[in-house]
């Protein structure tokens, strides 16, 4: 009998307490942002889309080796002796011509392991996070600007993606 | 009890069925006879001095020439740990289940069966647990061939 009335009493009291807590929150400031019109300021260390400043890239391939998901494809060839020497902005000589530098952001796991080994700090993760696309293949970002002199055809990235299951 | 004492106790109790003990290093262990695993497990769990009542981990490992089953045990009472291993042949590995000693072994053994094809005799419900029931092969074996399709779906 005691338990019966205790249940009822405690039920009423705690329900009213809960309602009181909820009532106070009716009038607190909301913590959300109205997203498309208001936006966060992204912290500077934000790890979102990868960006490679291809002019500084020496094509060493350390990023591709560090990547746990193999989302970076690099193909390079030696620059010819007769070509003018090219330097990155920190003064490193670029001895290789990078004619393929593809990053498949659909495969990227945003771990940032690729950006640390980069000797010229040209590969960075940017705070850019709005890059939805309609086609998965549009998530392959091709940074290379130069064409190979030896005439090798650029290997389409999509084939690689297909066989990437393992 | 430290690892040396546990190893000594095991050797004293089971003699030749403890094949090898390595009680120094960061992860001391004993390799025991697979045929005696259930008996040894019962002893490890129920003996007052050991009371290794908590089976932390049961897993297989493929060493190309053999398959090992690892039992990492811990005692909630005495706060010591010990590792017991069994070496099995790669072809048709099987040993007795320890489900009756530690109930958690049920799922761990199913996982080991799923991943390595180790058959635990006497297990109440030895089915694949993580992979689909009709999956072929044992994924964590070193010679596992990646399938290209599963039920006509490309993987």
């Amino acid at each position, binding site marked *: 009998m005691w338990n019966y009335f205790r249940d009822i009493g405690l039920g009423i009291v705690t329900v009213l307490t809960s309602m009181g807590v909820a009532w106070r929150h009716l009038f607190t400031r909301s913590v959300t942002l109205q997203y498309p019109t208001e936006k966060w300021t992204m912290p500077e260390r934000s790890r979102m889309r990868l960006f490679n400043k291809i002019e500084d890239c020496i094509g060493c391939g350390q990023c591709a080796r560090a990547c746990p998901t193999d989302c970076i494809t690099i193909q390079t060839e030696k620059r010819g002796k007769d070509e003018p020497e090219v330097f990155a902005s920190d003064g490193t000589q670029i001895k290789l011509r990078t004619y393929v530098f593809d990053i498949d952001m659909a495969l990227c796991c945003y771990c940032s392991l690729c950006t640390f080994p980069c000797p010229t700090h040209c590969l960075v993760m940017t705070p850019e996070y709005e890059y939805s696309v309609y086609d998965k293949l549009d998530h392959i970002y091709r940074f290379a600007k130069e064409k190979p002199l030896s005439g090798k055809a650029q290997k389409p990235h999509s084939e690689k993606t297909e066989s990437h299951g393992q | 009890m430290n690892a040396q004492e546990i190893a000594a106790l095991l050797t004293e109790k089971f003699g030749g069925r403890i094949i090898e003990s390595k009680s120094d290093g960061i992860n001391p262990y004993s390799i025991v006879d697979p045929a005696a695993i259930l008996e040894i497990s019962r002893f490890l769990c129920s003996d007052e001095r050991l009371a290794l009542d908590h089976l932390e981990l049961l897993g297989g490992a493929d060493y190309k020439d053999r398959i090992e089953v690892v039992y990492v045990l811990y005692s909630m009472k005495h706060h010591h740990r010990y590792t017991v291993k069994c070496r099995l042949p790669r072809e048709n590995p099987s040993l007795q289940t320890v489900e009756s000693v530690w109930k958690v072994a049920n*799922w761990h053994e199913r996982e080991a069966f799923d991943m390595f094809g180790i058959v635990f005799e006497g297990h109440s419900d030895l089915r694949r647990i993580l992979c689909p029931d009709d999956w072929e092969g044992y994924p964590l074996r070193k010679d596992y061939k990646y399938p290209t399709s599963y039920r006509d779906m490309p993987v």
Partner: protein
Amino acid sequence: MEVEYSGDVMTLNMGPQHPSTHGVLRLELKTDGEIVAAAIPHIGYLHRCFEKHVENVDYAGVVPYTDRMDYCAAMNMELGYVLAVEKLMGIEVNNRVRCIRIVMAELGRIASHLIAAGTYGNDIGSFTPFLWCFRDRERILDMFEETCGARLLYNYNWIGGLMFDIKPGFEDKLIEFLDYFEPQVDNLNRLLSDNWIFIKRTAEVGILSPETAISYGVTGPNLRGSGVKFDVRRDEPYLGYDEFDFEIPVGQGEYGPVGSCWDRYMVRIREVKESCKIIRQAVAKLTPGDVHESIPKRIKPPAGEIYMRTECPRGELGYYIVSDGGLKPYRLKVKSPCFTVMSAFEEVSRGAMISDVIAILGSFDIVLGEIDR
């Protein structure tokens, strides 16, 4: 609960797509009316063979994969792995790394327990606590993002150090957050934990006795909810947790038998407060230092094996690593706390009602990413 089953048994498939199976878990319920005669969990829908993956990436590359096991507490997941490899390689980290790791791990624990408490409220039918918990969790994630740039999958703990040092002013933000957050826990208690409906729903169901819990290898808050005072941080200290002053909350059974759903839930709420205490102490112990100091150039552990466990929010997380002296782990086996607690589910939920099955499942606080790996 002893129940006679007389009527026809109906099989009810709960999941893999169901609002409260916390992911893609499938429960095969044998129901007799509202009473569940047997609840058989079927797992594996999120299986991606993590253990095979990591055999094919180098030691540093494993860390992002560990993040993806328990995505609610990624910081603690990678911490366990990193500590295991460090122990295998014999790396000692300096005090700053140690303290920052503790701060981050405890923040991760708070964030994870907030999800546990919030989703549990949602399972019981109260949606408001869920969003309140997420509101506070967002502030923790903001701090993580400021420190390492990611909100969910951090890759922050590296073998031998940390990805980045904390930013100047981080400590003040942390203390400010804790000052804000601690009263919010009481607020949550008033709204949900002490609500009589909530107590009635949870305090008498899903009894997990200490003996069953140990036999099933249940760990972490679920074990402590059964009244077993065991915490890896205290009983097998790593990172110097033994220098910290904190309580280990255990289930006390205020409103029913010990080991009920409410006890497990309440242990988490109390642990959140203890974590706040640890963070305050860790911030006070913070000394200057270089967080990249002991990161090895090449991560190539000697041949050997190690089993290392840490206390992650869902229980003890063990990594069994076999190294053959190469650049990649030869074999890595994860002892997942949710996996073991899920194996006890069938026994705990026998004879419960459908609503109780949800309550029990929620109180276990499972993350399928970790069960299925």
